[in-house]
C-alpha cells in the first residue's frame, strides 16, 4: 500500500515520455497510445490494489478511520518557521468563540505527501478507471488527427494533476492539483489551437476558473491562520472545538466555507461561474468526457466532501450552497432544452447534475453527493463518448437537428447510449435512479434548515428531474429515432459503399508490403480516406488530399440537387477500440447504483462513514412514494418529448412559437452570458460616457477659464525657459555626449583589455583591503635603516 505515491507518478512518467520524446523520435501512434494507456492502466491497477489494501488496513484496531500516508516521496515541501496562533475557546454560555490570551506555537511547515483514505481511495479508483476507458477511446477518436502525442501527453498530465488533487494529504497539494487540472483543461480546450473559438473558450475557462481559485486561496489562508496547519487530518482533529455557526451568523467557519465554496463553484461550474463549461466543448470530445463531465468538474464536490466538517459548522453557507446548487440545476436544465449542439446539451446536462450534487452537499448529505458523482461519472462519460462516436461517424457535425435515424448506422453506440439515457432520466434499476433519488429524498427530509426550505428545494429539484428526462429524450430522439435528415452516400449512389469496403480490404492486405504499394493502389481513386491509416508519414498529406477531394464531390452534388444545409455523410460504426469503452461504461452506468441501495446494505454509506457523518434518517414509505412520483414524472416528460419529437415533429415547432418568451429565454441561456459579455460592458461604457458629458459641459468651464490665464503665463515662462533653462538642459546633453565618447573608448572589444580591467579591479581590491599587509611587506623588503641620530658632540671643555 505504500506504493500509492506511484499512482500519480505513473501518468507523470507517461506525460514525460509522450511530451518530450514522442515528437523528437517520431513515435508511431500505436506506441504513443500504448504509453498513455499503459501509464493509466498501471495507475488503475495500483489504485485497485490500494483500495482493497486500505479497506483491510482500516479495519484493523487502532487504524479506524485514519488516512494512510505514504512514506515514500514524503518530504517537507515548504519549510516555514515557528508562528504563534491564538487558541480559541468556546464560550458555552452563548456558544461563540473567544480568543484566549494564550498562544499556540505551531510549526509552519507543509509537507508533500500522498495519503489515501476512504474518500480519496474511491475517487482515485473511479478517476483512473474512467480515465483508462477514455484513454482507450481516444486512440480511436484522435486517430490520424494532428497532435496525437500532444493530446496523450496532456491527458496523462491531467491524470497526474487530478490524482495529486485527490491523493494529496493537505490543502496546498490539492491546490496544486486544482491549478494543474485547470491548466490541463486550458490546454485541452484549446487543443485545436488553429480554431478561434477553441482559443477563446480556453481563455474563458481559464480566467473564470481563476475567479474561483481566488476564493480557494483565501480559504486556504484563512484555514492556515485559524488552525496553523493545512493537513486534512490535523484540521479534522482541531475543528472539534469550534461551534456550529447558526443560520444568519457569519464567522470564521462561514468565511472559510465561503472561500472553499467559491473555489468549488468555479471548478464545478455552478451558477454565477458556469458559463465556461459549455464553451469548453470546443475541445476534443474525449476531453469533454474526461475533464468536463466525469472527473475534473467533480473536484468541487470532492472539496466539499473533504472539508465537510467545516461546512457543517456554517449553516448559512450550507443554505447558500443548497440554493445555488438547485438554481444551477434548474437553469442549466432549462437551457439544455433548446440547444442544438449535441455536446452543448450534454454540457448543460453536466452543469445541471453538478447542481444536484451541490444541493445534496448543501442539505448535509455529502455521501449522496459523492454517490451521484460516481454514477454520474459513468453515465455522463458514456454519453459523451457516445456523442463522440456519433460526431466521429457524422464527420465532425455536431448539430442534432441535422442528424436523425442514426439508430441503424450505429447499433452499438445506440444501444449503450440508451442505457445511459435511462440512467440519467432516473428509471428504476439503473444507476442514476438510485443516486438522484437519494438526493431528492435527503433534500425532502432535510432537517438542518426549516423543513419548508427543504420542501421547496425538493420541489425545484423535482421539476429539474423532469426537465432532465425531457431534454435527454429530445437528444436521443433527434439523434437516433427521428427521420434521417442527412443524405447518406448509400442513398445517392448505392454501389459506392461496397466499393469502398472492397478497396479497404484490398489495401489492408497490401499494407504488409509497405506504403509505396498503398499509394500505388489508391492513386487516382477518390476514396483514399482510410487507406493510408497505418503510415504515419504520409497519412497527413493523404487525408488532406482526400478531404479536399470529398469537398469537391460535396460541392458537385450540392450543385446538382441538394439544399446547402443537408449533409452528405456515410456514417459507420466506430472501431472496436472506441465501442469497447462505451460498452464497459454502459455496463457500469446500469449497475453502479447498487453500491448505494437505500434498503439493505448501503455499501457507500458504510464506506464513507469515517469521512462524512450521515444523518439517521430511516428509509420509509414517504421515500418510496417520492421515488415513484419522481419516476412517473420523469417517465411522463420523457414520453412527452418522444411524442413531440418523433411522432409529431410539428408540435415541437408549434410549441416553440407559442411559448416564444420561454423559448427565447432558454435558447439565449437566460441572457446570463449576454449580461456578462455585452450588457455589463455596454452598461459600463454608458456610465463612462455619462461621466464624460458631465465633464465636458459642467466641469470644463473652470479649466477653460483657467487655461486662458495659463496660456498668458506660459508664453512668459516659455521665453524664460528657452533662454534660461534650456541652456542647462543642453549642457547636460552635451556633457553626456562627451562622457559617452570617453566611456566608449573602454569598450574596445578586445579580450585582453577586458581581462586587464578585471585584473586592475583585483589589484585595487587587494590594495584597498590589505593595505596593512603591503605596508608590512614594504618594511620587510626594505628594512628601515636605523636613523643615525647625531650623537651630541661632547662639548669641548
Amino acid at each position, binding site marked *: 500500500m505504500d506504493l500509492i505515491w506511484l499512482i500519480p507518478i505513473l501518468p507523470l512518467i507517461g506525460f514525460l515520455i509522450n511530451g518530450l520524446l514522442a515528437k523528437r523520435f517520431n513515435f508511431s501512434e500505436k506506441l504513443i497510445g500504448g504509453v498513455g494507456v499503459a501509464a493509466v492502466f498501471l495507475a488503475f491497477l495500483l489504485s485497485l490494489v490500494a483500495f482493497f489494501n486500505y479497506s483491510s488496513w482500516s479495519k484493523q484496531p487502532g487504524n479506524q478511520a485514519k488516512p494512510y500516508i505514504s512514506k515514500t516521496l514524503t518530504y517537507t515541501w515548504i519549510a516555514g518557521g515557528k508562528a504563534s496562533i491564538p487558541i480559541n475557546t468556546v464560550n458555552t454560555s452563548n456558544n461563540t468563540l473567544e480568543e484566549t490570551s494564550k498562544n499556540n506555537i505551531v510549526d509552519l511547515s507543509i509537507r508533500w505527501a500522498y495519503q489515501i483514505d476512504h474518500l480519496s481511495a474511491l475517487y482515485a479508483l473511479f478517476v483512473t478507471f474512467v480515465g483508462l476507458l477514455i484513454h482507450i477511446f481516444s486512440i480511436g477518436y484522435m486517430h490520424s488527427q494532428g497532435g496525437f502525442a500532444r493530446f496523450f501527453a496532456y491527458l496523462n498530465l491531467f491524470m497526474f494533476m487530478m490524482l495529486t488533487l485527490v491523493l494529496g494529504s493537505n490543502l496546498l497539494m490539492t491546490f496544486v492539483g486544482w491549478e494543474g487540472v485547470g491548466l490541463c483543461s486550458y490546454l485541452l480546450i484549446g487543443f485545436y489551437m488553429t480554431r478561434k473559438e477553441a482559443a477563446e473558450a480556453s481563455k474563458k475557462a481559464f480566467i473564470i476558473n481563476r475567479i474561483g481559485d481566488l476564493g480557494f486561496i483565501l480559504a486556504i489562508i484563512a484555514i492556515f491562520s485559524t488552525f496553523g496547519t493545512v493537513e486534512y487530518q490535523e484540521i479534522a482533529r482541531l475543528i472539534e472545538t469550534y461551534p456550529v455557526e447558526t443560520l444568519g451568523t457569519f464567522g470564521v467557519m462561514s468565511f472559510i466555507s465561503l472561500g472553499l465554496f467559491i473555489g468549488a463553484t468555479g471548478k464545478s461550474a455552478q451558477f454565477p461561474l458556469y458559463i465556461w463549461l459549455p464553451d469548453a466543448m470546443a475541445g476534443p470530445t474525449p476531453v469533454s468526457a474526461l475533464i468536463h463531465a466525469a472527473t475534473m468538474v467533480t473536484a468541487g464536490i470532492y472539496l466539499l466532501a473533504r472539508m465537510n466538517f467545516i461546512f457543517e459548522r456554517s449553516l448559512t453557507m450550507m443554505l447558500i450552497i443548497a440554493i445555488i446548487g438547485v438554481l444551477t440545476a434548474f437553469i442549466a436544465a432549462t437551457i439544455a432544452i433548446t440547444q442544438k449542439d449535441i455536446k452543448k446539451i450534454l454540457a448543460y446536462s453536466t452543469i445541471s447534475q453538478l447542481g444536484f450534487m451541490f444541493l445534496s452537499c448543501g442539505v448535509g448529505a455529502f455521501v449522496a453527493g459523492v454517490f451521484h458523482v460516481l454514477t454520474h461519472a459513468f453515465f455522463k462519460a458514456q454519453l459523451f463518448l457516445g456523442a463522440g462516436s456519433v460526431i466521429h461517424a457524422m464527420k465532425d457535425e455536431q448539430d442534432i437537428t441535422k442528424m436523425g435515424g442514426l439508430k441503424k448506422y450505429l447499433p452499438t453506440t445506440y444501444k449503450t447510449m440508451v442505457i445511459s439515457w435511462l440512467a440519467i432520466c432516473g428509471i428504476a434499476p439503473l444507476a442514476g435512479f438510485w443516486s438522484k433519488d437519494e438526493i431528492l429524498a435527503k433534500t425532502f427530509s432535510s432537517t438542518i434548515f426549516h423543513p419548508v426550505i427543504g420542501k421547496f428545494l425538493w420541489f425545484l429539484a423535482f421539476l429539474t428531474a423532469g426537465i432532465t428526462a425531457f431534454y435527454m429524450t429530445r437528444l436521443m430522439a433527434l439523434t437516433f429515432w427521428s427521420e434521417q435528415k442527412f443524405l447518406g452516400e448509400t442513398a445517392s449512389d448505392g454501389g459506392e459503399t461496397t466499393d469502398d469496403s472492397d478497396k479497404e480490404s484490398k489495401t489492408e492486405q497490401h499494407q504488409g508490403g509497405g506504403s509505396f504499394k498503398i499509394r500505388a493502389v489508391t492513386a487516382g481513386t477518390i476514396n483514399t480516406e482510410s487507406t493510408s491509416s497505418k503510415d504515419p508519414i504520409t497519412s497527413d498529406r493523404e487525408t488532406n488530399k482526400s478531404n479536399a477531394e470529398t469537398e469537391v464531390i460535396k460541392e458537385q452534388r450540392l450543385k446538382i440537387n441538394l439544399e446547402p444545409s443537408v449533409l452528405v455523410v456515410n456514417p459507420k460504426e466506430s472501431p472496436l477500440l472506441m465501442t469497447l469503452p462505451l460498452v464497459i461504461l454502459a455496463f457500469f452506468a446500469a449497475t453502479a447504483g447498487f453500491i448505494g441501495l437505500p434498503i439493505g446494505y448501503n455499501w457507500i454509506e458504510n464506506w464513507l462513514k469515517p469521512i462524512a457523518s450521515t444523518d439517521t434518517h430511516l428509509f420509509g414509505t414517504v421515500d418510496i412514494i417520492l421515488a415513484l412520483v419522481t419516476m412517473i414524472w420523469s417517465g411522463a416528460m420523457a414520453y412527452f418529448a418522444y411524442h413531440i419529437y418523433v411522432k409529431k415533429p410539428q408540435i415541437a415547432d408549434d410549441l416553440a412559437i407559442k411559448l416564444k418568451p420561454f423559448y427565447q429565454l432558454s435558447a439565449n441561456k437566460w441572457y446570463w452570458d449576454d449580461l456578462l459579455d455585452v450588457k455589463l460592458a455596454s452598461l459600463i461604457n454608458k456610465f463612462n460616457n455619462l461621466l464624460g458629458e458631465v465633464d465636458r459641459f459642467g466641469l470644463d468651464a473652470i479649466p477653460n477659464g483657467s487655461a486662458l490665464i495659463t496660456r498668458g503665463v506660459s508664453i512668459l515662462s516659455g521665453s524664460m525657459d528657452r533662454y534660461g533653462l534650456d541652456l542647462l538642459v543642453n549642457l547636460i546633453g552635451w556633457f553626456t555626449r562627451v562622457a559617452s565618447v570617453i566611456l*566608449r573608448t573602454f*569598450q*574596445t*572589444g578586445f*579580450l*585582453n583589455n577586458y*581581462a586587464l580591467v578585471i*585584473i586592475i579591479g583585483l589589484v585595487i581590491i587587494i590594495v584597498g583591503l590589505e593595505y596593512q599587509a603591503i605596508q608590512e611587506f614594504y618594511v620587510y623588503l626594505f628594512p628601515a635603516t636605523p636613523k643615525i641620530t647625531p650623537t651630541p658632540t661632547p662639548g669641548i671643555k
Partner: protein
Amino acid sequence: MINLLNHILLILLQSEAASSGVKERLLEGLFNVNINNFLVLSSLLFVIGIAGVLTRRNVIVIFMSIELILNAVNINLVAFSRYWFLQSEGKNAYMGEIFTIFVIVVAAAEAVVGLGIIIAYYRNKETVAVDEIDLMKW
C-alpha cells in the same frame, strides 16, 4: 623512496658538518620547506598565467595560460590537503585532492569546448589573433 634518500642525506650531513654551525644554520633555513613555500610557488605561477592572458595575442596561448592558472590553484589545494592531513591526523584530509581532481576535470572540459570554439572561429575568420576578434567593439 624519497624518505630513503632523505635518510642518506641526513647521515651525510650529520657526519660531515655536525660541527660547523654556520653551514648547519644555512641548511636549516633553506631546507626547511613548509606550506609557505608552496603558496609562494603557486602565487608566482598564478601571476605568470595572468600575465600570459593579458599580454599574448594568440588565443591558444591564452588558453594555455588559463591552464597554468588552474594548475597553480591545484598546487595550492594539494598543499593545503597535505597540511590538513598532518594537522588533523587524517580526518577530511583528501577533500583538497578530490577538489583538485574536479578542477582538472573542469579544466579538461573547458579546454575541449574552448578549442572547439577556436577551430570554428578559425574556419570562419582564418585567424586566431585576439586583437582581430573585435566583433564586440562598439
